[in-house]
C-alpha cells in the first residue's frame, strides 16, 4: 500500500473512522513490528508494537497530515524502542541468550538457515545508529530522505551510516567462516 493511501487512512481515522483506523493498523503493523524486532529485540517486539499503536492512535487527533503517516508512525516506533531501551538499562536484566540455533524470525528455507542466522546476528551487532539507518532503508525500504525524516537527521548522515553498516556487515560476515553453510551432503 502506498504512502498516500496510508496517509489518507490516518486522516480518516483521526476523524473518528474506526474502520479506517483498523485498515491503517493492518497496512502498517508488519513494518512497525519488523523495525522493533531490530531496534529492540524479538521477545518484546510484539509488546512494543502494541505500545507504538496505542501512542500513535492516541495522539492521532493532533496529526495534520503534513508528513506521510507511515514515517510519522515509524518515528513513534523509534521513540518507543528508545524508551524501552532506556527503561531496561535502568533496571538491568540479563538479556535472553542468543543460541546458535536460534531461528531467524519466522524461520527460513532449510539451506539458507545458517546464512540468515549469521546475517541477523551481524545486523544485531551493529552500532545502534548504523543499525537504525540500515534497517529503515534496507528492511523497511524507506528512501534516504524518508529515513532522515524518521530519525530527524540530515540525509548525509543516513547515507554515511548505511555505508558504514554495510562495511561492518561485510567485515563481520567475512570473519565468521564457522557459520558458512555446509552444502555438501
Amino acid at each position, binding site marked *: 500500500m502506498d504512502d498516500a493511501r496510508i496517509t489518507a487512512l490516518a486522516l480518516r481515522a483521526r476523524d*473518528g473512522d474506526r474502520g479506517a483506523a483498523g485498515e491503517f493498523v493492518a497496512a502498517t503493523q508488519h513494518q512497525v513490528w519488523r523495525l522493533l524486532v531490530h531496534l529492540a529485540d524479538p521477545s518484546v517486539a510484539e509488546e512494543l508494537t502494541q505500545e507504538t499503536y496505542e501512542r500513535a*492512535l492516541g495522539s492521532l487527533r493532533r496529526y495534520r497530515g503534513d508528513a506521510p503517516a507511515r514515517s510519522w508512525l515509524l518515528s513513534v516506533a523509534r521513540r518507543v524502542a528508545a524508551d524501552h531501551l532506556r527503561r531496561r538499562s535502568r533496571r538491568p536484566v540479563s538479556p535472553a541468550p542468543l543460541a546458535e540455533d536460534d531461528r531467524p524470525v519466522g524461520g527460513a528455507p532449510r539451506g539458507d538457515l545458517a546464512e540468515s542466522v549469521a546475517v541477523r546476528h551481524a545486523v544485531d551487532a551493529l552500532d545502534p545508529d548504523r543499525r537504525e539507518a540500515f534497517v529503515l532503508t534496507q528492511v523497511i525500504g524507506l528512501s534516504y530522505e524518508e529515513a532522515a525524516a524518521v530519525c530527524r537527521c540530515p540525509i548525509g548522515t543516513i547515507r554515511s551510516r548505511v555505508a558504514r553498516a554495510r562495511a561492518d556487515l561485510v567485515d563481520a560476515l567475512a570473519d565468521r567462516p564457522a557459520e558458512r553453510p555446509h552444502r555438501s551432503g
Partner: protein
Amino acid sequence: MRVAGNHGAGRDDQHGVDCDGCREAMSAALDGEADAAEQARIDAHLGGCAACRSWQRDAALVTRHVRTAAVGAGPDLVDRVVDAAPAASVRWRGVSARAGLAAVGLAQAVLGLVSLLGAATHAHAMTDPFMVLGAGMAHATHETAAWNLALGVAFLGGALFTRHLAGLLPVLGAFIAVLAVLSGLDLVAGRVEPGRVVSHLVLVAGFLLGLAVVRSGPRPGTGPSPGARWWRPGGRSVVADDGPTRPAPTPWERESDVA
C-alpha cells in the same frame, strides 16, 4: 556467507577518490541514491582498485541477504489497538461545536450592535458629567460596544477558520476571569442589573465551545492558512506534479505532537 575477506580501506591518490568515499558512494548506488556524476566517479575508482571491486560484490551480496531474509508474519494487533483511535463521536462533536460557536458569535455580534446603537443615541441626549481616565461615560460605552461586537466577529471567524481559534482563547479566558470578579462585586454593590450580567454568559458559552472546537483537532483546509503551511524555506512544494497532493517529507510540527 561467502564473502571474500577483509578489505582494508586505503587511499587511492591516482583517481582522487579514497576507498572510504568510494564505498559510501557505492553503498548509495546500491540503494538507488547516487547520481550519474557519482556513478562515474565510482567507475573511475573501481577501474584501478581491486579491493573496492571485491567490496562492491560483497556489499551487494550482504544487501541481498538482508532484503530477502525470510520473516514470519508479525502479530495481528488490529483488534487489540483499534480502540485507542479517536472514537466515531469526535467528528460530529467537532462539527456541532463549530455550529454552536457560530450561533454564539452571531448572538454576541447582535448584542454588540444593539449596545452600539443604544450608546450612539444616548450620546446625543446627554452631556456627560463623569469623566474617568479621559473618557466620558458615552465613550466608555462606545468602547464596550466595539469590544462586544469584535468578540462576536471573532467567534464567527473562529467557527469558520478553526486554525486561528486557539490564539483567541487566552485573551478570552483572561477577559472572562476579570469580568466575572468585577461583575460579582458590581452585583453585590447594586451597580449593575442582573440582566446585563446574564448577557455575559454568552461569552462563557463562546469560550467553552471554542475550547471544544480546538480540542477536536486540526482540520486542514478550513480557512486561509499561514504561508508556512504551504511553503517552508528549504522545503518543497506540497503539490506533486502528477496530480494528488503529497505531503512534503519535511520535519513535522513539534515533538509534543507524538506525545
